[in-house]
């Protein structure tokens, strides 16, 4: 144990400074620091699974199943090149949903760390944004690893491909915030299982990730178009295959940004309700 040499005057000055409350970004950053400390213990396992997951996925789905599928894909691309950007976006969605679920529910029901944070200068929205920052940081990290694997497997066919990364992150964010808004209202994890099984999995399978959306029955097309994931998958694929146009980029980006804005508003509202208004 090291003995610190902080003078009483310096300590008092630090207290004085701590009485001035900074803006929302700095407060959110404090919440992010909490999560940094919290997850620091487990970073090795997280990195391992982040690397192993996509490599296994691309090998099994692309190289394994892909060799059986030799025709019928738009543009005549290989199956691996077709699904890789889709899985990039879908995995970002999955990460967004996971990060917005157990972390939030655990903080409010099991670990109780939100109930500690509310007693500090943190406001509910700072707690929300700080938690989202850490969820997005992890999603970004996973996406970077996945993208590196995609490059390694030779599935990026255009320089536009680098923009698939931020689009994937945006797709993750479009799911992270609504999920946080929902998770903070819960009392146990049963409803989360329902979301995973009946929302996340169907989205994962039927948003054009593994096969062209045109294959879906016509009545399902509007449903696909309505999900942010479809827009994320389509835009990521157009970027990595180099088929993107200004119009399609504008539509997909616009949709994702609107979904993000709505999600943030919802998350802000339900965090304020649970952590402040309804106490």
């Amino acid at each position, binding site marked *: *144990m090291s003995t610190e040499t902080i003078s009483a005057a310096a300590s008092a000055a*630090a*207290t004085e400074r701590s009485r001035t409350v900074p803006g929302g970004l700095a407060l959110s950053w*404090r919440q992010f620091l909490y999560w940094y*400390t919290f997850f620091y213990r487990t970073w090795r396992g997280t990195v391992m699974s982040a690397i192993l997951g996509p490599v296994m996925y691309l090998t099994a789905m692309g190289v394994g199943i892909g060799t059986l599928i030799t025709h019928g894909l738009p543009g005549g691309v290989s199956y691996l090149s077709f699904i890789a950007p889709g899985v990039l976006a879908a995995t970002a969605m999955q990460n967004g949903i996971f990060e917005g679920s157990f972390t939030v529910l655990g903080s409010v029901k099991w*670990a109780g760390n939100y109930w500690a944070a509310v*007693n*500090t200068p943190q406001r509910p929205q700072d707690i929300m944004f700080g938690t989202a920052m850490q969820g997005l940081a992890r999603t970004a990290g996973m996406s970077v690893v996945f993208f590196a694997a995609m490059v390694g497997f030779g599935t990026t066919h255009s320089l536009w491909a680098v923009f698939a990364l931020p689009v994937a992150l945006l797709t993750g964010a479009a799911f992270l915030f609504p999920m946080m808004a929902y998770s903070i209202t819960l009392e146990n994890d049963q409803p989360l299982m329902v979301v995973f099984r009946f929302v996340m999995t169907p989205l994962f399978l039927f948003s054009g990730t593994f096969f062209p959306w045109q294959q879906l029955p016509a009545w399902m097309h509007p449903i696909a178009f309505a999900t942010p994931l479809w827009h994320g998958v389509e835009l990521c694929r157009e970027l990595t295959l180099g088929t993107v146009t200004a119009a399609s980029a504008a539509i997909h980006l616009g949709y994702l940004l609107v979904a993000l804005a709505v999600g943030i508003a919802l998350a802000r509202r339900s965090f304020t309700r649970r952590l402040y208004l309804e106490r």
Partner: protein
Amino acid sequence: MSDLPGNVGRVSEPIPAAEVLIRAQGLVKTFPKKHGEAFTAVAGIDFEVRRGEVFGFLGPNGAGKSTTMRMIGCVSPVGGGHLSLFGLDPNTAGPQIRARLGVVPQEDTLDVEMRVRDNMQVYGRYFGLPRAVIRERAARLLDFVQLTDRAEDKVEPLSGGMKRRLTIARALINDPEILILDEPTTGLDPQARHVVWDRLYRLKQQGTTLILTTHYMDEAEQLCDRLVVMDKGRIAAEGAPRELIERYATREVLELRFPLGEQEQAAEKLAGIGERLEPLPDRVLVYADDGEAALTEAYRRGLEPLTALVRRSTLEDVFLHLTGRTLVD
């Protein structure tokens, strides 16, 4: 003291009343019920807390103490009436007020998977304190709550008393001007309670302003300079513990137990002894300034209690008198 020339020959001024840190007037909190009518947890209470005093909220479960604490802690909106801390409005200056408070919640909200020292660190960061400052304070505070040798351990295996002491240490990390404790010793065994009381007593002697809620009258009597007795969302009485006992109870109490079935008859025979009788389900309390004399009189009237005990009046008696109920059901 320095002898400043300007002070020479001046008549000593009256000691100024200590600064009021918290002021509540007609404070109300109502919760909407899911179905049906609203539930009023705090039904219009007034109080003031001054710098350096230990102020208590005494009352049974459901009296509105914790709800009041949450409004004071600016983690729940003021439902009605007026509340100010440090002259600031909780509805608009919550973060600024919370930066100056330390809070020990009723339920421990520690990070049980983190080490003791890390708990201090993450909490201190919420206040924007530099790491080095937190490290120095954490060492000092963990020493104060006698947890230095557990600093590198995880929180999970610590005893209930240790966790509560850690929560107290954590709440002091920002050098708060007011420390709020919601039932600080509920759920602790007697020995652990005494250790917590001892630490709180030291804080009191150092001049820290403490606000605490409790349903233990001995806790309130030992620690509080001033307290309010709460019942059903209202303040039933306010004052120093001794003052309240003098006002609402006699100096002594005679507690008599009778065989089953004979209590009612006995209570009738006791009529007129002491100032007041309080028949409870399991015993009869006789309020008298001289308990021994009251007991002698009871024997003289031919009563044969199973047990007889003369004790000093406590806040429990005050509460019983004011509400007709005991503090801990």
